[in-house]
């Protein structure tokens, strides 16, 4: 027999069962799709962090900076060069090209160390035009689109550039930013010759800023991506459940074929190789489809992700997706790996089961007692591990570990729980039909349990993440009300205008709250110090979560400062701890306030304390307290009197609205992934039911023959999955709440640095329950219709035909 004939014999199985074939391919494709979609998003984001790292001086090199954060003289650079140091100057600043504001980064390409020269400036000719007047802007494709026509400078487009930033020659930067002879920092190359005079002797006024091991943005967004990856994995696992059960079924159903083939002299090896080849072929096909769908999913989700990253972390990620090999290759790889993992058991069984073992497809999926016990033990171990991690481990990884163990353990436990529940029902019921119903459902459990586990995971994730997001939102909105207490926020354009504004406002409003801040580096973290006046607004509204009784007096007197929650948790600060705020400014922590949505630490000091240390601090922005009904008038007279553009006068309502919008966008992706996962789980259920429905006849025929109408049988068939869905849904509620709790109390604290109170939203459960019900009905519908339309002769064949 030729290989081709053999292959045809094996493949004919799929032709006769297009449904199973569809299930296999769609399961695999969906799993791959969600996985590679998430990978694509992550890859895109990572690439843009790399761009950010290039643009934002995070290339792993140390820098010389001025300790007060200001500029430093170019002469320092020349002096270092002339002493033999391999250093290169950088000047950064914001510059507006027409309506587009860009981060202009001036570099000196001839001295820029190779390891820092991540953007290709082109050949020698391009380089010359980069350094020669008028000069060239190296920008991202997106930025190039925006500023085309807004500048006479030549544009050079580089994929590796960050949106909103431009590389220019140092000389051009100095003239654009009007900072002749000034530098922001001096990059120190790694490659230095020995015997150089130390910096302390050459440029005593400057300090060395060591490079970050990891870029700031990467660090900040790590948790977010971990989140996405976790979701991707979850979805992938759910999809693999489908693949696993379909492959298992197909192998079982083909056992008579295998038997016949082997009787005809086909060796086990040839058979295994053929089957493996078949699987690889499917994996490739499904992988291709999956990657394509994944691309679609990712490009649908990416704008949301970009918005999230922008809103939550200030990281700029383009909203468009590029086909990066790292994710589409990983898509194929995971499709392949998934297929092999899912088929390993079946293949092994094929190798081990004796040649003439009776073909009994109907026992498919019946797990042995021992198997079930192992599963329960594994579940118990996982749950115990989750508890242990909760008690004794910390860190973000541990948080996700807790989540993973909890979810996996609970889902492994599910079949046993359902089976136990059904056994009890069966024992206690006396009616023949109820007994049969329970027994039959229990018998179907192994075939459905993977789909049910998937469903449990998806539902629990839905409940958990939903609870987390809603709790977060509730807290956030309440916090916004406290935090944005001033009715109107204005920003003057210049310091003299600010002086006039203050004088003018003195008589017009209840109080004027200056918003002044400086950038500082505290405990090695870059953060902001805000100065506040002593005002009832703060005393009444500011969202303190811990503090001394007279905290505001202490802040006003300059004796103490407030820190935000994330800084407090990160640094494990306690009230009364000393904090070095600047070179000669130490203060005491007297209170902690919640500061959601801010990735960085923050300190609030009395305004006097701040201005005495930083006399040059900008005093352009103010919060104004007025009666709510006067806001519109005040707004009008502000723009009339000072000609302030609308952007400079923002009222509280608008600000809150904007914050809420950012918040909602932030969790858009989570919501979407949630729905996708649920969809895959529903599909898994549907496919399992469909597959099972092919094997229902031998189960139903005797019952029908004994006098149960087809209608009643159909109703029972409808009821069965509904009962399973419902029980799973009920089981998912406590699991989801546990998940939410871990997210709020463990993962969020590690990832963002804030802890949120948990609220419960039963109404959302009802909604989810209805969605689940609808999905269940849909998933049952097709198998049921097949059953209802069954002719008696079909049922009779069961008794007549040799199967």
């Amino acid at each position, binding site marked *: 027999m030729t290989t081709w004939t053999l292959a045809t014999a094996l493949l004919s199985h799929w032709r006769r069962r297009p449904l199973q074939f569809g299930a296999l391919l769609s399961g695999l494709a969906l799993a791959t799709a969600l996985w590679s979609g998430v990978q694509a998003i992550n890859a895109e984001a990572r690439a843009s962090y790399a761009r950010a790292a290039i643009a934002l001086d995070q290339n792993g090199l140390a820098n010389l900076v001025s300790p007060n954060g200001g500029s430093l003289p*170019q*002469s320092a*650079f*020349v002096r270092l*060069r*002339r*002493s*033999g140091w391999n250093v290169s100057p950088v000047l950064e600043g914001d510059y507006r090209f027409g309506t587009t504001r860009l981060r202009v980064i001036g570099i*000196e*390409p*001839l*001295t820029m160390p190779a390891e820092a020269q991540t953007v290709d400036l082109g*050949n*020698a*000719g391009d*380089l*010359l035009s980069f*350094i*020669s*007047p008028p000069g060239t802007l190296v920008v991202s494709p997106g930025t190039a689109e925006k500023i085309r026509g807004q500048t006479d400078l030549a544009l050079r487009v580089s994929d590796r550039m960050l949106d909103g930033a431009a590389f220019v*020659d*140092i*000389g*051009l930067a*100095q*003239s654009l930013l009007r900072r*002749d*002879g000034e530098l922001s920092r001096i990059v120190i190359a790694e*490659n230095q*010759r*020995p*015997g150089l005079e130390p910096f302390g002797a050459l440029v005593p006024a400057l300090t060395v800023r060591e490079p970050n091991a990891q870029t700031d943005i990467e660090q900040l967004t790590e948790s977010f991506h971990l989140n996405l990856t976790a979701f991707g994995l979850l979805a992938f696992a759910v999809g693999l459940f489908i693949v696993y059960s379909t492959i298992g079924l197909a192998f079982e159903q083909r056992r008579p074929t295998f038997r016949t083939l082997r009787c005809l002299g086909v060796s086990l090896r040839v058979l295994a190789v053929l089957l493996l080849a078949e699987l690889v072929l499917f994996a490739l096909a499904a992988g291709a489809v999956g990657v394509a769908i994944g691309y679609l999913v990712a490009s649908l989700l990416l704008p949301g992700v970009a918005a999230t990253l922008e809103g939550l972390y200030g990281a700029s990620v383009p909203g468009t997706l590029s086909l990066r090999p790292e994710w589409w290759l990983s898509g194929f790889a995971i499709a392949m790996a998934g297929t092999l993992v899912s088929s390993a058991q079946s293949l092994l069984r094929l190798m081990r089961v004796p040649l003439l073992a009776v073909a009994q497809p109907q026992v498919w999926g019946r797990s042995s007692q021992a198997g079930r016990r192992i599963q329960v033990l594994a579940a118990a171990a996982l749950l115990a591990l989750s508890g242990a991690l909760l008690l004794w481990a910390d860190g973000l990884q541990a948080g996700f570990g807790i989540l993973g163990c909890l979810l996996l353990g609970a889902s492994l436990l599910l079949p046993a729980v359902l089976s136990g529940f059904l056994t009890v029902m069966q024992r206690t019921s006396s009616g023949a039909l109820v007994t049969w119903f329970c027994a039959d459902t229990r018998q179907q459990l192994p075939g459905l349990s993977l789909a049910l586990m998937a469903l449990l995971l998806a539902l629990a994730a839905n409940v958990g993440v939903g609870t987390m997001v809603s709790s977060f939102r509730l807290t956030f909105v309440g916090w916004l009300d406290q935090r944005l207490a001033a009715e109107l926020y204005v920003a003057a354009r210049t310091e003299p205008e600010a002086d006039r504004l203050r004088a003018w406002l003195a008589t017009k409003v209840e109080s004027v709250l200056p918003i002044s801040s400086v950038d500082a580096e505290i405990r090695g973290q870059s953060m902001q110090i805000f100065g506040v006046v002593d005002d009832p607004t703060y005393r009444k509204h500011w969202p303190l979560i811990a503090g001394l009784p007279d905290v505001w007096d202490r802040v006003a007197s300059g004796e103490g400062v407030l820190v935000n929650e994330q800084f407090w948790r990160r640094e494990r600060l306690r009230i009364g701890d000393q904090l070095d705020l600047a070179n000669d400014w130490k203060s005491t922590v007297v209170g902690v306030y919640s500061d959601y949505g801010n990735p960085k630490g923050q300190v609030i000091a009395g305004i006097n304390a701040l201005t005495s240390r930083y006399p040059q601090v900008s005093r352009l922005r103010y919060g104004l307290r007025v009666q709510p009904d006067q806001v519109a008038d005040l707004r009008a007279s502000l723009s009339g009197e000072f000609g302030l553009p609308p952007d400079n006068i923002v009222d509280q309502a608008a600000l809150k609205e904007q914050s809420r919008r950012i918040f909602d966008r932030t969790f858009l992706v989570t919501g979407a992934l949630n729905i996708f996962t649920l969809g895959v789980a529903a599909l898994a259920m549907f496919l399992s039911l469909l597959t099972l429905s092919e094997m229902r006849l031998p189960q139903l025929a005797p019952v029908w023959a004994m006098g149960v109408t087809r209608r009643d049988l159909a109703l029972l068939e409808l009821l069965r999955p509904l009962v399973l869905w419902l029980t799973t849904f009920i089981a998912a509620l406590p699991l989801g709440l546990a998940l939410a709790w871990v997210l709020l109390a463990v993962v969020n604290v590690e990832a963002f640095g804030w802890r949120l109170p948990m609220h419960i939203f039963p109404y959302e459960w009802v909604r989810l329950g209805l969605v689940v019900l609808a999905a269940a009905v849909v998933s049952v519908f097709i198998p049921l219709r097949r059953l209802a339309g069954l002719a008696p002769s079909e049922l009779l064949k069961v008794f007549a035909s040799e199967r």
Partner: protein
Amino acid sequence: MASLSGSQAASEGFAGLGSAAEGFSVPQPGLPFRFPADHGPHTDFRIEWWYLTANLEAPDGTQYGAQWTLFRSALAPREANGWSSPQLWMGHAAVTTSGDHFVAERISRGGVGQAGVVAEPFSAWIDDWQMKGLAAPGSDQLAELNVTAAAKDFSYELRLSATGPLVPHGDNGYSVKSAKGQASYYYSQPFYAVTGSLALPTGNVAVTGKAWLDREWSSQPLAEDQTGWDWFSLHLDTGEKLMGFRLRDAGEGFTSATWITAEGRPEPLPAGTLQIVPVRTAKVAGRRIPVAWNVRIPSRGFDVTTRPLNDQAWMATSTPYWEGPISFGGNVGGRGYLEMTGY
């Protein structure tokens, strides 16, 4: 960085030296040098160099060569303060031993003080490399020099003292480079006595010897079809010096030479008088390079064969070339330097 001025050697001659001189000044015959001003940069010319080569010897007789060069290359015929200066500077430093050849390169923009040349008090520098005049104001600024260079694997400090006068080449410093009339301004100080020290990976060595400084500037010293040159500076045991070069083209090439008497009087030799013929080639940096030459001036009965101290004196810089110390023998002996470009 590939190269400051492009390396399309074939089409524009070596290192772009054959490109047209748009807007730049062009050397004219009959204009005498004015010192010390001419020691400084001529920013209206496209290219310029301060080129020092030294044949050195340790107390135990070990031979060394040292090179210190500062190139100026202008993108536009002007100078400006700050980063908008169109002047680019490039420094090459090398030490050659019989077994090693150490090379370093520095590149810098003009206008900010990272590199430059001041005529009086004389100073030429790029980063921490420097050629500093020690002579009193008003006297010959190149008579006493302190030269330093340092890189990862070597450094040196040389003290130079001129024992003879500055020597103009060609027609009073107007040095013709091709039959088509390309020319440069060219003078030398070939009479330095050197003391100093080399710091090499193997340790420090005190050295003495002879050095030769070339000063040359131009805007288009090569004709378009000239692809490179072979240039010799020879200290004859008789105290006489010989500067000679051949510019290669598709045909015979263009040779020129200056015979310098022991007193420092230049005797420019007519084009074609110098005859050079390779006698041995070596595989250097993947190419065949003639490292030993027969150099003849038949009218003077001068006939020597040169030998390099190190075949592999390859300057692996952004514009690579061969530059190394040589010794020669024949009807007169001596030492010198050989530079070969465009191979």
